[in-house]
């Protein structure tokens, strides 16, 4: 019986139109804008300056604390200047503009030059594993960008007894994780084994939604013969890939209010992150590129492409023949939780799982109307929050009540906004409320 979480959830159209497209390899663009900050946590310190010569894999920005992450240059080249650029998330941040030595070189050639390292994961020490992951600048590649080494270093009083690999990919349109699971299953399992060793051989569960039967099959075949690795097919329901929902679905454990997965003894990692961990060990390759799904109704040939971190969106658009004049909405990430962006010069970052381009036909553009008290948002909320009530609390600046009613447990999945018949910007109100609380403390 396929598993799922119990509370709320919605069924948006899947639109996985690029799921049959093999991962293609992009070329090295004529210039790269490597953002200094691509993670949640303390900002990095930029260590290159105008005119510095950088090599592939060389540090561009150094982490400044434990909850921080390194950034590396994906190419050999020269730093032209340090510029401030609008990012895909909307914030304006510092970027290192790198002019590569060999623009136009296909990425397969670049990847071939990386060393191939053979190792036995069981001989690695715990410190070695954490240090390699931290040095490689690996962050959660599902979208949040939380530094992975922090997630892999739970405090000693919390025992981890299960590890979940998140291959649910519940967002519409995105297929990058799907293709990774299908095409690079072997490397994925190797990465998983490193994590299994880190947590003393805990059982591993790979959660995959049932709309990817080929990926389930591929991983089941590859995982055969390994101890304690189980592929768990999941019911197709959004947000199945939410950390807390996935734990509920697979292990039937509930993460407590304001708690973290480690409170119930679980660590969740995204498949793209696990692949990056594999690369860091077997190719000594820091996180410098990722698979990005290019889709949306303006893309004639949607696909999945391996792109260097820092590749400008305009370069991707040219490659996929997208007319900038026609684009009305550009979303980085999925349509549910992704961020709309306004600058075609923004670069691809470590957390860009997809780039979606739409024209007018996909804009609803209706005004926000009064709440009709239908309760749809409450039914849809996977965290069991009374969403409609919060908007009134925030409007009235009744912050203590919002805290009491656990506004901070909102995972911003957008299910409430999706179902609202009055087009209320519910998730935006929730984010505003959470922002007010963070600001006041």
């Amino acid at each position, binding site marked *: 019986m396929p598993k799922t979480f119990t509370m709320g959830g919605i069924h948006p159209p899947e639109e996985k139109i690029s799921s049959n497209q093999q991962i293609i390899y992009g070329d090295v663009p004529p210039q790269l804008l490597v953002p200094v900050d691509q993670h949640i946590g303390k900002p990095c310190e930029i260590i290159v300056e105008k005119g510095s010569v950088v090599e592939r894999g060389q540090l561009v920005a150094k982490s400044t604390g434990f909850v921080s992450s390194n950034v590396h240059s994906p190419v050999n080249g020269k730093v032209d200047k340090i510029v401030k650029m609008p990012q895909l998330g*909307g914030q304006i941040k510092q970027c290192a503009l790198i002019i590569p030595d060999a623009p136009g070189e296909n990425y397969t050639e670049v990847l071939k030059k990386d060393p191939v390292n053979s190792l036995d994961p069981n001989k690695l020490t715990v410190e070695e594993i954490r240090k390699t992951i931290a040095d490689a600048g690996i962050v959660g590649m599902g979208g949040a960008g939380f530094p992975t080494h922090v997630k892999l270093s739970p405090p000693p009083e919390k025992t981890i007894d299960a590890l979940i690999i998140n291959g649910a990919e519940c967002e519409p349109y995105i297929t990058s994780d799907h293709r990774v699971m299908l095409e690079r299953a072997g490397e994925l399992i190797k990465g998983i084994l490193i994590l299994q060793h880190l947590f003393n051989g805990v059982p591993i569960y790979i959660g995959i939604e049932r709309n990817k039967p080929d990926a389930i099959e591929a991983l089941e075949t590859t995982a055969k013969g390994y101890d304690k690795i189980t592929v768990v097919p999941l019911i197709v329901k959004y947000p199945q890939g939410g950390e807390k929902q996935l734990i509920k679905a697979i292990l039937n454990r509930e993460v407590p209010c304001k708690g973290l997965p480690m409170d119930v003894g679980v660590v969740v990692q995204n498949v793209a992150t696990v692949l990056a961990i594999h690369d860091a060990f077997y190719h000594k390759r820091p996180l410098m590129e990722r698979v990005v799904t290019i889709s949306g109704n303006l893309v004639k040939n949607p696909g999945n492409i391996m792109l260097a971190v820092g590749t400008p969106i305009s370069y991707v658009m040219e490659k996929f023949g997208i007319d900038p004049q026609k684009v009305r909405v550009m979303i980085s990430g999925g349509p549910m939780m992704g*961020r*709309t962006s*306004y600058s075609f010069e923004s670069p691809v970052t470590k957390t860009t799982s997809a780039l979606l381009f739409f024209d007018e036909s996909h804009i609803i*553009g209706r005004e926000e109307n009064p709440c009709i008290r239908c309760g749809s948002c409450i039914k849809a909320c996977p965290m069991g929050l009374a969403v409609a009530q919060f908007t009134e609390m925030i409007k009235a600046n009744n912050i203590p009540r919002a805290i009491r009613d656990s506004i901070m447990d909102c995972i911003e999945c957008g299910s409430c906004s999706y179902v609202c018949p009055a087009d209320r910007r519910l998730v935006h109100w929730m984010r505003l409320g959470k922002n007010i609380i963070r600001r006041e403390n």
Partner: protein
Amino acid sequence: MFFEILIPGLILGGFALISSTGLYIASKKFYVYEDPRIGEVTEMLPGANCGGCGFAGCAAYAEHVVGENSLKKPCPVADDETMSQIGALLGLSADTGVKKVASLMCKGTSQNCKFVMDYKGIEDCWAAVLVADTSKACSFSCLGLSSCVRACSFDAMRIEDGIVVIDDEKCTGCGMCISACPKNILHMRPKAKTVTVTCFNTDRGADARKACAVACIGCMKCEKVCEDDAIHVNNFLAKIDYAKCTLCGKCVEVCPTNSIEIREVTVDA
């Protein structure tokens, strides 16, 4: 007939007598002495409960003033006369300080600074900043989504052509709008010094100019022309030292991008 009226009358009268006695006893027994001056000061204060003094409304401020017996923290809204009256009542000398008003350091109207996106979210500056740092070409620009207007208790602010316009006459200098602005572009200036740099862009001159037609480009012309050493360019942005400014208006004349503004001097301050 007579008794039918008399009995209810007596019953009600009896009730009234008992409860009034109870109330009388309670008011004597649970009497709390409150300095009568607190009430008097509250009466004198503007009564807008704006919170500009840092207390929860005028009554709380009056309690503080009488309790501490000090007027070191003057009500930012009340005029000199009111403050000296309060001072006379408490036997203190009131120092009202320089009257200040809020001024917007931006002139990015829809003509000067183009919108780069079509924001359709909640009408609130903080909510807009969550989506993107800016919806206009200049990342320091006023977003025009009325967060400060809602914070203003004195109806001194309105949105005009995409930016906030402040009515100097109505602004009392309570400062509540300053913290309501996510872009940090509202600042206090002495009411009498009507010259303002209407830009907060610290980008390089060329970038600033590209973003907005009336941006400060850091050309230093104002700094050179100023005879009182009152205007300085730092980080590609001019800043006025109001203690030294004499309102001569020379910087306004030389500014090539019209990003320094002088208004007609208001007399009352």
